[in-house]
């Protein structure tokens, strides 16, 4: 029998199949839908990661005091005298003016922004709250930051009692919107809002010197972090090495007991991407399990189907069917069950992935949205068909090997 005819008969079998076949198909539907939804989530994450990496500024490094592989702030217990007038406690490891001076000597560095950070009490029109405050070097901040302004302007070198605020603080944090030129009270002092960022944070940015005044427990010329913009992003690793060497020298530490950390946005993004992709691999593995369960379902249905159609196989053989014909019809039938399941599954997978970001809320996993690529659909369809064929292989082979006389006698 020609292949096309075998296909026709296999198709006929699916069309005339009973509820049982449809239940089997549902198994594949669930597996494929899950795989597609998860892959689309992963691809959405990937594309978000890429755009984020571009927006983050791959040429930025963040230097912080303390060093620990675990990522904590406070590393070794080695104390250090505060240079440059900084008053540091014996045990505290800090970044200060001398570090800044040392970094100034490195030609790879284009500019540096010194920052301090803490949480502060704020109030606006009687409504109070606690938000994060960042003091920045207003002379370079606007050039170094990857943030963008939505309303108003960045901080100016002449600025004193003014702040730039995150969009969420401006729009929804208080009962009334906190717009440009409005006054906000921070730790008892009044500040004028000159800019609103295009982001979704509640952070307040103010000139570094003002921040030292507001934040009592921060000492002058001691920084929480130094943001470095390098001249050439492509030499990032070299630049990091130079900075490390210089800082180790000035801080009298070796690679073993270093007490500062340098992180690049690039590295961070890459690490995060790695974490996300292993996470999505894990989810994919779970989805794959449901596909395997679906495959077992197909095998089961095919075995039953072969038994049920034993007499038909006998009839077909009596009237001229070769073993190959029977094998092909049943194999194609299994493949079709897989394919139909795959198609329906792809449809529901698409729907599901559309709904996922909403379902998962604002978890970082879903922030990138979803993206159902043709690739993942084609892959899911071929996998589901393959699953059908593999699962149907043994039953189909058994069916094809039936002796006509035995098959005909079967009731």
């Amino acid at each position, binding site marked *: *029998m*020609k292949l096309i*005819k075998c296909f026709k008969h296999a198709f*006929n*079998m699916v069309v*005339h199949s009973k509820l049982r076949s449809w239940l089997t198909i549902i198994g594949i539907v669930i597996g494929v839908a899950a795989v597609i939804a998860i892959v689309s989530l992963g691809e959405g994450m990937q594309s978000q990661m890429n755009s984020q990496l571009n927006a983050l500024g791959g040429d930025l490094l963040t230097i912080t005091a303390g060093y620990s592989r675990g990522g904590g702030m406070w590393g070794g217990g080695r104390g250090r005298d505060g240079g440059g007038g900084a008053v540091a406690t014996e045990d505290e490891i800090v970044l200060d003016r001398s570090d800044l001076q040392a970094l100034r000597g490195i030609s790879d560095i284009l500019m540096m922004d010194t920052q301090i950070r803490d949480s502060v009490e704020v109030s606006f029109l009687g409504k109070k709250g606690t938000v994060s405050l960042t003091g920045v070097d207003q002379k370079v901040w606007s050039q170094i930051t990857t943030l963008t302004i939505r309303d108003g302007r960045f901080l100016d070198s002449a600025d004193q009692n003014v702040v730039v605020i995150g969009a969420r603080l401006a729009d929804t944090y208080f009962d009334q919107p906190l717009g440009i030129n409005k006054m906000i009270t921070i730790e008892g002092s009044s500040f004028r809002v000159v800019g609103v960022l295009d982001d979704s944070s509640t952070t307040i940015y103010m000139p570094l010197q003002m921040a030292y005044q507001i934040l009592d427990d921060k000492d002058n010329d001691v920084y929480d972090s130094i943001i470095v913009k390098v001249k050439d992003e492509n030499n990032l690793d070299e630049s990091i090495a130079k900075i490390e060497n210089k800082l180790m020298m000035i801080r009298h530490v070796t690679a073993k007991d270093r007490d500062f950390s340098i992180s690049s946005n690039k590295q961070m993004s890459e690490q995060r991407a790695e974490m996300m992709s292993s996470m999505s691999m894990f989810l994919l593995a779970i989805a794959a399990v449901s596909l395997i369960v679906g495959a077992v379902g197909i095998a089961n249905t095919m075995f039953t189907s072969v038994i049920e159609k034993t*007499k*038909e196989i006998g*009839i*077909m*053989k*009596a*009237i*001229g*069917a*070769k*073993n*190959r*014909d029977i094998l092909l019809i049943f194999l194609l039938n299994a493949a079709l069950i897989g394919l139909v399941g795959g198609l329906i599954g792809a449809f529901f997978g698409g729907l599901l992935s559309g709904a996922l970001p909403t379902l998962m809320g604002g978890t970082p996993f879903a922030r990138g949205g979803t993206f159902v690529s043709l690739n993942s659909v084609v892959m899911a369809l071929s996998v589901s068909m393959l699953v059908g064929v593999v699962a149907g292989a043994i039953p189909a082979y058994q069916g094809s090997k039936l*002796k*006509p*006389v035995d098959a*005909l006698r079967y009731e």
Partner: protein
Amino acid sequence: MKKDSRQTMLHLEDVWKIYQMGEVEVPALRGVNVEIKKGDFIAIIGASGSGKSTMMNLIGCLDMPTRGKISLKGKDISLLSESELSSFRGRTIGFIFQQYNLIPSMTAFQNVLLPLEFLEVDDKKATEQAKKILDLVGLSDKFNSLPSQLSGGQQQRVSIARSLVADPEIILADEPTGALDSVTGREILDMLQRLWKDEGKTIILVTHDLKLADYAHTTIELMDGKIIRTHKKVIK
């Protein structure tokens, strides 16, 4: 008796069929010799348990003998591969079963078309042939009916159409009227007789009904796996 010059269609030489029932060997056929010539109309009769079903399976090349040799049109069937035998059988023998054995999910037309599909006959030719044969058995208006929508007699006519569609030389009918009333049964047998007389088909009829055997010109009677009597009518 003068020598019969007609072609030998089927030749069973000392054919034994022994079934293994656990420890016990049950012989169903014990050294049967039959030669069926082109244009014969043979009835194989016998009570149940006489071995006629076994004989019908062997004659139809659906089963292999335990001992002995079966030749279909001069070819020893034990030398053919399963697939070769299937094709050969499909071209040479048309089956009519007691229970019609139509494929329930296919229409009358699709059922009749099926043997031609297995033989990979060109689509256009196959369609024409299937239509012609369905017309011949008087089912022009039932092309698209499923077997479940047809009466027993109609189903048997579909099955006759299916057995004829590939133009086989031998028609093997196993109790073709067993499930039909006597009037319809007679119609079916008249049809078989016409095929024998007008088309020159070789007809082998397996039945327990002696009245049916009257239609045939040769009657072979089986008992306990052996041929006990071969009766030839005088052909005018």
